[in-house]
């Protein structure tokens, strides 16, 4: 065994580097690799191809979560999806794509333009609304985001819409005031519907490194996350931080966007995702 260990220490190092270069955190990568190594040694497995497959299976196992990976729909419409995340990660685009996807499935969708801060955020969402024939509830610039959400809930209830998707302004997890604003938005939904949003999804950019874990942690502590939307997977980054986020915070990836066209959105597929890490 020591012979295998010595001659293959490079093999294990390469496996670890594959994970690290995909932005998996060192802790999670070490945990996964040492579990596999222990299993391989105790089962006399020394075929590197088989070990690689074991590694893939282990990663898929971590990413899989049974029922949680599906989008939740409420028994009392509208189902409410609150979309959050730091600046520029792809929230507004993901919302348009998700709305289009749900509409194609025959659902009645309303979008809330609750980013009242950034220049042309409302116009950006309205552009998609017009293209898709989906209503966008909006107020004038710098109005209270909570008021937009309240108004959207009214409209969604009146129209008996199936889903209301709420766009919020990008915000750093390090901004106390902006995180408080998000809590307030969540409370508006609870007060109106007597339940929390059915999905609270953090949008994470595939190119982001270890800071994404901190983002997930702080957003989760503030408002409770039900899932991740992983964006820009059409780039060269693998978004491995979602493996860390699932492993350490138990937050699953639900959706993936892989381009700038409206159809570039899919339900998360752990097998496909894991395969991409190893190409």
């Amino acid at each position, binding site marked *: 065994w020591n012979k295998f260990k010595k001659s293959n220490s490079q093999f294990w190092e390469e496996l670890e580097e594959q994970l690290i270069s995909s932005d998996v955190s060192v802790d999670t990568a070490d945990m996964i690799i040492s579990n596999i190594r222990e299993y391989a040694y105790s089962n006399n497995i020394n075929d590197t191809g088989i070990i690689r497959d074991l590694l893939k299976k282990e990663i898929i196992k971590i990413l899989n979560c049974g029922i949680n990976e599906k989008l939740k729909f409420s028994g009392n419409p509208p189902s409410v999806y609150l979309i959050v995340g730091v600046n520029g990660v792809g929230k507004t685009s993901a919302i348009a794509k998700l709305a289009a996807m749900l509409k194609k499935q025959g659902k009645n969708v309303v979008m809330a333009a609750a980013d009242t801060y950034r220049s042309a955020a409302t116009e950006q969402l309205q*552009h998609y609304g017009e293209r898709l024939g989906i209503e966008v509830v909006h107020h004038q610039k710098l109005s209270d985001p909570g008021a937009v959400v309240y108004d959207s809930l009214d409209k969604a209830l009146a129209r008996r819409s199936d889903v209301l998707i709420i766009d919020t302004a990008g915000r750093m997890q390090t901004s106390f005031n902006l995180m408080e604003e998000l809590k307030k938005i969540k409370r508006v939904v609870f007060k109106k519907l007597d339940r929390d949003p059915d999905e609270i999804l953090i949008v994470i950019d595939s*190119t982001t490194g270890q800071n994404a874990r901190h983002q997930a942690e702080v957003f989760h502590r503030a408002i409770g996350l039900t899932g991740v939307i992983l964006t820009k997977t059409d780039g060269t980054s693998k978004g491995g931080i979602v493996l860390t986020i699932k492993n350490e915070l138990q937050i699953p990836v639900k959706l993936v966007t892989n381009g700038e066209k409206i159809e570039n959105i899919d339900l998360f597929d752990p097998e496909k995702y894991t395969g991409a890490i190893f190409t």
Partner: protein
Amino acid sequence: QLTGKFEDLFFRIRNKGKLSPSDLDAALREIKLALLEADVNFKVVKEFLGNLKERALGKEVMESLTPYQQVIKIVNDEMTRMLGSSEGSVNFSSGGPTIFMMVGLQGTGKTSSVIKLANFIKSRFGKSVALVAADVYRPAAVLQLMDMAGKIGVDVYSEKSMDPVSISRKGVEKFTRDGRDAIIIDTAGRLHIDENMMLEVENIRKAVKPHQVYLVLDAMTGQEAVNIASAFNKRVECDGLILTKLDSDTRGGAALSVYYVVKKPIKFVSSGEKIEDFDIFHPERIASRILG
């Protein structure tokens, strides 16, 4: 200069007169961990540790009365060296307007940086600035730029056409005729692996001949930062980088990796959404964040 994890580590070994090989290995492992957690590219980390070990096994450390202090000094020197120097200020061209162009991946903060740089040039140098809206793809991109430009009293050239090369050329011609001191071109976000889009930004550069092309890079970019920056640099010959979203408290290892490999200076940093959250790059500040 070293904070947090590094301080504990070196505090633990400081009272040992000599630096044993196992002490050094333990120290190197801790440094590797800290750098990877800071998003420094793993190949850059390997090389850094290699150089560090070589120097640590040399006379300056082994024959020093305070070997651990020597190692800290080396780490700090190497880090600061790897970040380049502060060359942030703007050099204006003597004949005609100075032309700037922003490029980068989607969502990194290009459009915001155009506005911040324009404001920086106006307020610090008293120069007249005008902008060219060459992002024809993103919904409401031109509106976004115009809305922000209106707040700082800066003109924007835009067209209904879908040809960013012609928009850029015409915008620069117009503002040159108007006698502006600086012209800044905003381009669409694009992937470094999108051949058509990289060709487009190459063509804009050829048509307009900017004095400064800045790659706008998100400070929280992970391991791919080096590949992204290298690809952009190869296609459009960047003059420098603008590092954004530093207020995320990200450690910023991407900055170090990119400078180490691409050797282009970081000119400016953006640390917030306000127009004034924009400043000249100071390497020492990033070095202490990475080692944080």
